[in-house]
């Protein structure tokens, strides 16, 4: 058994590390704007996009990198990306309006996800590319185009259930896309609507970390492109979706040690590591560990742009050549839609410590001015320690590692920020801040609610320039040097 503190320290890129290394600045922000508070680093998003572009360049591929807007509802990330070599993937009419209002032109916007008529209409009206889910949506789109005299929209055909030869690869069933087995009828439909929609290629998006599954889908797309060409279309885009992942932890060894100890705790061979002995999907049955760890693989040796690079370098399952080479020599452009990976290291969520209560048995309880909906790490199965941001002026005692439980501000037994016992280098004091690093991808505002009239987090955009930090409200951010009042309130677009 490992008796030391089981830290899961976050991986911090230089910008985020510098931000967390500026406690007076963070306390000033939280004092003024309240807790919880989301802090974004828009410049990091542009740097991440450049990371993906460099992979495109290495494989000599053209095409676009679309930021999946749904990962973060802030304005500043999207606005910053308008000035980067990036595009945007929108999943609702609201996100589409946001993208247009941020300055994205339609050639850099793709509409994905389930679509209502207004969403389809605005996408077609503005000239955005429509990532079509299936025949129903294509019929609806063609009908809108006919009735309203809209310009002929570019569409991508989202496919699923790719077939394999040899070993059968099982994949989770998706509610999205058209089975490749039904591609024939889909092409018949496109044939009928040839003058109303313009199929520029095919797409997949698989919810899996497995590159082998994605390689099968990508090869399936290459073959589907051939089918389009045989029908007289001129497709030139293969869209491989997102799911490139993020590595949240700084140290693989901490993750390995933590998960080993978690298994030991579930087996009863050490004291629990969670409130109430929760096993994150594992349980013990007759001395054997059963179930599966339902946690995000928080330390990933290959993630983000590196994962894309590895996927493109991987040989196609039956054609044998590297997938990137096949795309290139087939003269196809590559579209990707990273969400989490483009928002990696782009921000943090701050929470004020309201109360520290020592208990007779077990870890101390630390109550925060936030609730579990404000930082959705646990909801996404991501285990990572918050960073203690001390309030200046307090007595600096020697560090003494301590395990605590983090409680939320709702009057609800279940409102735990995490069920995990969190180890901190010392016990926090009332007034300290906890900084949850790297929440910008899906974990910042995805599930935030007004439950019990508790405040929603405000969001600010910050950048370090000229030796000091500058900040503005997220909705006031524009990717230009000037700060301060602007003629447009920015909140209406």
């Amino acid at each position, binding site marked *: 058994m490992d008796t030391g503190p089981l830290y899961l320290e976050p991986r911090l890129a230089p910008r985020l590390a510098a931000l967390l290394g500026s406690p007076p600045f963070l306390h000033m922000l939280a004092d003024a704007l309240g807790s919880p508070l989301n802090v974004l680093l828009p410049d990091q998003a542009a740097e991440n996009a450049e990371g993906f572009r460099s992979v495109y360049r290495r494989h*000599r591929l053209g095409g676009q990198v679309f930021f999946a807007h749904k990962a973060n509802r802030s304005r500043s990330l999207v606005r910053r990306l308008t000035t980067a070599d990036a595009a945007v993937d929108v999943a609702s009419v609201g996100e589409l309006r946001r993208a247009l209002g941020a300055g994205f032109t339609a050639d850099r916007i793709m509409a994905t996800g389930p679509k209502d008529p207004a969403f389809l209409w605005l996408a077609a009206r503005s000239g955005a590319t429509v990532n079509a889910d299936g025949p129903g949506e294509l019929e609806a789109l063609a009908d809108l185009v006919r009735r309203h005299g809209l310009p002929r929209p570019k569409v991508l055909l989202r496919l699923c259930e790719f077939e394999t030869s040899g070993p059968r690869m099982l994949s989770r069933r998706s509610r999205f896309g058209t089975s490749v087995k039904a591609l024939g009828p889909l092409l018949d439909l496109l044939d009928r609507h040839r003058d109303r929609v313009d199929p520029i290629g095919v797409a997949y998006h698989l919810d*899996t*970390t*497995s590159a082998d599954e994605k390689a099968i889908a990508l090869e399936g797309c290459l073959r589907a492109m051939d089918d389009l060409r045989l029908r007289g279309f001129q497709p030139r885009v293969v869209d491989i979706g997102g799911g490139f992942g993020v590595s949240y932890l700084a140290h693989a060894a901490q993750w390995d040690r933590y998960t080993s100890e978690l298994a030991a705790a579930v087996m009863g061979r050490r004291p629990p590591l969670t409130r109430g002995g929760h096993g994150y999907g594992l349980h013990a049955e007759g001395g054997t*560990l059963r179930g599966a760890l339902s946690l995000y693989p928080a330390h990933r040796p290959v993630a983000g742009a590196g994962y894309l690079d590895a996927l493109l370098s991987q040989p196609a399952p039956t054609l044998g*050549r590297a997938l990137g*080479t096949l795309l*290139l020599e*087939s003269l196809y452009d590559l579209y990707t839609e990273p969400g989490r990976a483009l928002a990696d290291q782009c921000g943090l969520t701050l929470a004020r410590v309201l109360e520290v209560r020592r208990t007779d048995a077990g870890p101390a309880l630390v109550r925060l001015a936030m609730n579990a909906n404000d930082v959705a790490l646990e909801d996404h199965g991501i285990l990572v320690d918050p960073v203690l941001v001390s309030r200046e002026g307090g007595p600096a005692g020697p560090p003494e590692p301590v395990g605590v439980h983090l409680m939320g501000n709702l009057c609800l037994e279940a409102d735990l920020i995490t069920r995990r016992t969190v180890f901190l280098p010392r016990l926090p004091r009332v007034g300290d801040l906890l900084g949850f690093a790297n929440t910008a991808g899906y974990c910042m505002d995805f599930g935030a609610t007004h439950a019990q009239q508790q405040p929603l987090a405000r969001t600010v955009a910050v950048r370090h320039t000229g030796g000091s930090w500058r900040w503005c409200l997220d909705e006031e951010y524009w990717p230009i040097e000037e700060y301060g009042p602007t003629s447009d309130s920015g909140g209406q677009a």
Partner: protein
Amino acid sequence: MRYDSITEAIGNTPLVRIDPAVHGLRHIDLYAKLEMLNPFGSVKDRAAWNMARAALPGAGERGETVVELSSGNTAKALAVIAGMHGLPFKSVTNRMRIAEVKDLLLLLGAEIEELPGRSECLDPTDTEDPLTLFHQRLNESGGAHLHTDQYFNALNTEAHATGTGPEIVADLDGRAPDWFLACVGTAGSSTGVARALRAHDPAVRVIGLVGEKSDFIPGIRNIDEVHEVGLFDPATYDTIESVGADDAIDGMLTLVRRCGILAGPTGGAAYHGAVRHLQSLDAELTGPVRRTAVFIVCDRVESYLGYVKQRRPELMRRPPARNSVAALSDAEVRAAQVIEVADARKWIAAERPLVIDLRSSFAYAALHIDGSVNIVDELFDELVRGGLPFGKRQPVLLACPVGEQSARYAALLTRMGHPDVRSLAGGIIAWRDAGAPLVRD
């Protein structure tokens, strides 16, 4: 030796002493139990046969499919045994990372189902992990399956408690070894052998070897994964130690290069783990008394060439090829003759050069320059190693996707003495973007 069935050849494997000059232990005799010499190639032949034997006739009558969760050797043995008895075999796995084993299973007629990877957008309330669903499907009534269940089946352990273990004692002249070391996969062999040896002499020390967590050694579980194994009981082992993939390959190299034992990486891991564990103990021993230790060599090296090549490419170094683009200098590549799309079109019309498209046949079949010949780069690379593949009076235009690869081959052919070979500037992509015609034949 004459047998009526190949399954009779399972077991009774040799126990071979490792030359002390190789392992360097002064007071301990180290023996390898060569389970790789079982007829289907691994230690799993014993378990597979023991688990399936009694159930086969009934399964045959009911027309059942033999099913196992296996990533390699158990699947291989069961595929053979099922085939011999006219039954289909299906292997379900999320761990099959050895391409050669996959191909061999398909050759043996097995069906392989691979479980999906982890979800990228995780839903922690989803308790239906793929493994749970697999077990549910097997347990559905009316399912025609013979599930051998190697991780939980007591017959797996029994194969070794009654076979492997007693064989070791017999070969050591009726004595149990002082140490027994084995890699833990299903825990069947280590548990079964340990049981037999301890029954003979309770003082025997049993060392279980597991993979390092961040690493992957085929056939071995890591320290967390062993807990998922029903047959695994920590009390079986006096110590559990971990071995890294690099150590396993080093151990394997020692066995294959110096001991004449063509072991795979699992055997290498056992050898490395054995010597590492015994070194300090050996140093403390004095006097004339000899001690003995036995480790298991689980399977053979041949299936793991890809695995080794990927991790240690230097072990399979080849001499540099004579005519190779890799040997070109940057200056030579820059000096290659390139031709812009518009000029190339005129040149093709006027002089009919041989147009060679270096892309894959898949891409070529979809669209290409009319009249061009497709020689995929890998093939072209091999052709030119032997010399110029066409006459010097035949002008040649090379085309690839963006004009980089074709420039390198143009430079190489020029170096080899061809007077008029040109590279299409910007490649087929520039050709398309210039609006020049591409055809599909």
